[in-house]
């Protein structure tokens, strides 16, 4: 039952902000957060208030508190919908979700182990990056957002392919065909489409749907001649000698 | 702020201060009649018919004593948990139990007369009248039983709120009409013969946001010369015309004890144990006595020139009816006194009236009083 007697600093707004930025640079994120919150508390109206709100989100992100960061971002967007910094807010939201579930190993070595993991955070990141690309195309964050969005789309497609391959190995050919169809329909512009076509053709062949198998194999051969599946399908007499 | 902070719901009781005695109260006799309320928050009251006093205890003990000298006439140990009683009259002594059973005994010998079943738990003493025995149960029902056979004559239901006080108003019988105060702040007049509703009058409205603020139980109404006086917790003190239920006057006051009426004044004990005298014609305050705040005073009674009321430590406090000053104090035991003292003329050579006080430990004491010449 002790009082939380934190010392109330009576600083002008600039001093709060300056100290907070230096704390951020020094990597002391928690201290930066307390300073910025106090700035918001004492000067809720000044020039620095809005800036503090977005910087505190960045501080939360750097200190690993992704949920607090997202909450701060959403509040900033609601309060200042037309502020030019909103583009950065969406971009930051994408970054927070992008790195949310990365384990220490992945973070330090950048090992791409995102594959096959819970993708809820990744889908949120994708939505945020796509917002930046569509609503703020000429903001400085647009190019990086587009790049990261494509990376995420490709990775989500490859997830589906690995699941399709799992079901093919276990003889669940309807499941394989469904997953491949999903990739072709949802992620048409990703390289994974080649594997989807190849696997689907083989699944059709295993189910005795020769006509479908041949058509799919032909589409694969025409669009992705270099795909390893083309060779396998030739060997399996699905594709003719041409 | 310690771990077991001594949080209390109510402020501590006021200390007793010295006073200038103007009344001499002496104890005539005193007996332990049983286990009293057995530690539960019940209100058991003594009853009197002629020269006999009847008392009931939670452990099932019912006894009759000679009023003048306290000799025990008869003693019964019923196998039930008595939560309401005792009522005496028409040759019967009636008590009621936790599970709603109504037990009637013969007043002279204590032998069983009849038993009956009320619809729910009964915590208010039954009322015995020429036409029957009337019992108000906790679920808002009033049930009438035949005097001689105990069979049910009629039953009147009434709405009751989700949260109520653990008290039920004892009905009042006058001239063929039963007046009952309910837990939703309404006073109802019922025809004693068939339970037909004569009128309903809202003495007080529940107000406030939640169940506790909306608590508004009415207490035992008092009838005198065609006027019914009612009071309620979080409610008001009001006087209503007995035949129509029209409210003559009303004062916002919170009291869950029954009142005492005498001469031109109505004596009320409020929820915080302030004793007040109101003019029964207008409800204006004659006097207010704040010396006993939070001493959880019981219901008041009139004894000669004084108003007598018991407190949580077994003291009887005697106040002057005219001025409200403390005129006497007599301790009768350890347990609290909740029921109104019973003032009855005992006959015999002295001719004066005795005051019978029952504590929650089951101790019954007879007191007499006479003024001290200045």
């Amino acid at each position, binding site marked *: 039952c002790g009082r939380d007697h934190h010392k109330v600093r009576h600083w002008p707004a600039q001093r709060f902000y300056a100290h907070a930025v230096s704390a951020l640079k020094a990597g002391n994120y928690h201290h930066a957060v307390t300073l910025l919150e106090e700035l918001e508390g004492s000067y809720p109206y000044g020039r620095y208030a809005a800036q503090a709100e977005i910087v505190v989100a960045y501080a939360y992100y750097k200190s690993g508190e992704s949920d607090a960061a997202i909450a701060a971002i959403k509040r900033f967007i609601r309060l200042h919908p037309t502020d030019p910094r909103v583009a950065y807010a969406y971009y930051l939201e994408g970054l927070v979700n992008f790195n949310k579930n990365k384990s220490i190993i992945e973070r330090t070595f950048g090992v791409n182990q995102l594959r096959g993991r819970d993708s809820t955070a990744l889908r949120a990141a994708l939505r945020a990056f796509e917002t930046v690309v569509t609503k703020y195309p000429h903001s400085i964050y647009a190019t990086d957002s587009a790049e990261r969005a494509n990376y995420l789309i490709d990775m989500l497609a490859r997830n589906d392919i690995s699941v399709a391959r799992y079901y093919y190995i276990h003889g*669940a*050919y*309807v499941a394989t065909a469904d997953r491949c169809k999903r990739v072709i329909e949802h992620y048409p512009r990703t390289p994974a489409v080649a594997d989807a076509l190849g696997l689907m053709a083989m699944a059709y062949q295993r*189910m*005795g*749907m020769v006509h479908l198998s041949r*058509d799919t194999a032909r*589409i694969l051969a025409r669009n992705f001649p270099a795909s390893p599946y083309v060779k396998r399908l030739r060997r399996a007499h699905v594709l003719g000698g041409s | 702020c310690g771990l077991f902070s001594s949080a209390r719901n109510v402020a501590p009781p006021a200390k007793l201060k010295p006073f200038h005695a103007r009344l001499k109260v002496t104890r005539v006799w005193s007996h332990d009649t049983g286990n009293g309320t057995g530690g539960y928050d019940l209100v058991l009251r003594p009853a009197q018919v002629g020269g006999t006093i009847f008392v009931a205890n939670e452990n099932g003990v019912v006894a009759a004593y000679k009023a003048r000298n306290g000799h025990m006439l008869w003693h019964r140990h019923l196998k039930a948990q008595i939560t309401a009683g005792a009522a005496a009259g028409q040759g019967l002594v009636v008590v009621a139990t936790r599970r709603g059973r109504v037990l009637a005994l013969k007043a002279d010998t204590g032998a069983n007369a009849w038993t009956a079943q009320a619809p729910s738990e009964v915590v208010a003493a039954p009322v015995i009248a020429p036409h029957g025995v009337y019992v108000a149960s906790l679920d808002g029902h009033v049930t009438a039983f035949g005097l001689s056979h105990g069979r049910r004559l009629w039953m009147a239901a009434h709405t009751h709120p989700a949260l109520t006080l653990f008290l039920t108003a004892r009905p009042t019988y006058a001239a063929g009409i039963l007046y009952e105060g309910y837990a939703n702040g309404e006073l109802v007049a019922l025809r004693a013969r068939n339970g037909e509703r004569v009128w309903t009058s809202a003495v007080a409205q529940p107000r406030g946001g939640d169940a506790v603020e909306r608590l508004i139980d009415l207490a035992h109404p008092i009838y005198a010369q065609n006027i019914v006086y009612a009071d309620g917790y979080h409610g008001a003190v009001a006087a209503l015309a007995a035949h129509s239920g029209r409210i003559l006057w009303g004062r916002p006051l919170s009291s869950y004890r029954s009142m005492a009426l005498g001469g031109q004044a109505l004596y009320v004990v409020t929820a915080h144990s302030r004793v007040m005298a109101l003019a029964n014609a207008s409800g204006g305050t004659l006097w207010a006595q704040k010396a006993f705040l939070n001493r959880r005073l019981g219901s008041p009674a009139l004894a000669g020139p004084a108003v007598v009321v018991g407190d949580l430590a077994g003291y009887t406090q005697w106040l002057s009816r005219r001025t409200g000053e403390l005129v006497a104090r007599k301790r009768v035991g350890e347990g609290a006194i909740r029921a109104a003292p019973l003032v009855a003329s005992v006959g015999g050579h002295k001719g004066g009236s005795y005051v019978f006080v029952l504590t929650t430990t089951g101790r019954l004491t007879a007191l007499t009083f006479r003024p001290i010449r200045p």
Partner: protein
Amino acid sequence: CHLLYRPTVQQGNVITARMIARLHVGMTKNEVVYDLGAPAIHDPFHPNRWDYYYSLKRNYKPRIAEHFTLYFKKGRLARIVGTPRPTPRHIYGESDS
């Protein structure tokens, strides 16, 4: 080797005799779905070809497979290729012991 346990793999639509009885050329796509349920295979590149396929592979027992194809023209069932056969009742009732 026979000792190895492989979980049972079931795929595709279960077809009952009553469904087959109700099936006839000329039905709209919705009517077919109401009768047989959605097709197991609906190739993205052949919108008007529905394949009803069923297979059950249980430990060390030969795989059971049923397959027939429905072709639609202008939204109506035009051709049925392959003979729709009801799935044996005891099979689809079987569950993994």
